[in-house]
């Protein structure tokens, strides 16, 4: 599903011109507008799931969009834990989502062991 951009705004006017950039997310290529955030560029392309939770694998996307909640963290050019809402998209950027990591020392709780789950 594609959400796209707000091309015309009754008060803010038409979308200001901006150069088009290319970047990739998990190996897929996308177009972005120069000056926007990685999170905005991905959302405009219909990408909402930015990572899977490290432990449970549940899908996660942006939440606060101001760099406070850390929900939108991705890996950019090999650096993990980068907030996509605060990071300006650059041409050729290699963005990777997060995925489930091993948790060998985690103890399962009684509820998780119970057959009713």
């Amino acid at each position: 599903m594609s959400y796209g951009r707000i091309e015309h705004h009754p008060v803010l006017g038409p979308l200001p011109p901006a150069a088009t950039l290319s970047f990739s997310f998990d190996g897929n290529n996308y177009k972005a507008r120069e000056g926007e955030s990685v999170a905005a560029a991905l959302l405009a392309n219909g990408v909402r799931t930015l990572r899977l939770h490290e432990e449970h694998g549940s899908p996660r996307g942006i939440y606060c969009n101001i760099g406070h909640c850390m929900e939108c963290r991705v890996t950019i050019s090999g650096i993990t834990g980068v907030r996509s809402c605060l990071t300006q998209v650059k041409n050729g950027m290699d963005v990777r989502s997060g995925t489930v990591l091993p948790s060998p020392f985690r103890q399962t709780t009684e509820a998780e062991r119970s057959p009713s789950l």
Partner: protein
Amino acid sequence: MNAIYDLIVVGAGPAGLAAAGSAAQAGLKVLLLDEFMKLGGRLLGQLHQEPGGAWWNGIREAELLVLGAQEAGADIATGVSVTGLERTDNNGWTLWTTQGCYRTPFVLLATGAAESANPLPGWTLPGVMSIGAAQVMTNVQRVRVGNRGVVIGMSVLAMAIMSELRLAGIELAAIVLPPGNALSGKDSNPEAVLDSLLRFANLAPNAMLKYGAKFLQNSMLRNLALNLYPKQGIRMLDVPLQLRRCAIEIVGRDAVEGVLVADITPRGEPIAGSERVVEADFVCIAGGLYPLVELAAVAGCPFRYVPELGGHVPVHGENMQTLLPGLYVAGNITGVESAKVAIAQGRVAGLSIAFSAAAEKAPGEAEIKDAMEQVKLTRHEALIQFHPDIARSRAKLYQIEIV
């Protein structure tokens, strides 16, 4: 270590920009840092009509403040996060950032506010966001957050952003209350929500709501209205305000597919059997704002809990100085108020710091007094009063704490 600046301002929102401008104007060497890629902080998303009909466009207001700070000679850096703040022996400060370390005699924290969350099951699904996130995406990034949304939480902030989303052509299926729990508290009680909304009746876009609100100042009529309030809500800007409905859970497999809602009694208890799913592909959680104070805490600032100002605030005087030498605060970190108040506070902070630093063109005490009066005047004239007791609680804070 970089030690060339007299003042480092953290946060380039309305308060930080105004402060950097006035301090640089007075002759201080100022560095302004912000972790976002654009300058203006939360001014950027703001878009509303003033009582006279003119539009308050935060993007334009931010541009003017940036121009003022730049012309005054302040250095500005974006995309830089401040990660630590420590007092050094000789009454100065060390500031750790993602772009190196700085030493400076004066620091102004203008970090603004963050949104409180009212969590509910399903809130980690992609497509759920704070209402401020939707505002930034819509007005600043100009990206559609979805095709049809539900807003959970009914407050003046939620109403203001709701109208901005509608202006951008985003469809909203409903505004409902959060589920009743320890975190949502009064926000899930229709009586309390109606009371708080009535204080903002002057913002109502339609005459019926505006005059309706006047009648409802009478508590008997108010109870009657709550009991008769239509379950499907009253429409405002084509969005049903469902004061008698709450969200129970956000549903969806890999992303938001809808919100499970239930009718509630005037006191907020869900009515069994009334549950249904409202289809939506995005959800905005509107939980209100609280001052963003971490750096003040890390620095060792004493705090006071002032609910009227949005939570814990660093103790400070009317000149914006904290109890720690050289550390100042301005804007929403001192209490949640409008951007215009933040600008006025920023000017006070910039001038006070220039005075204290004995800057080349330092202002006189009269000029600082004038700037403080301007804060009060701006607060008095503010369109959106985030809390009715702001002025009183501020006066109390300034009187008692700073001797």
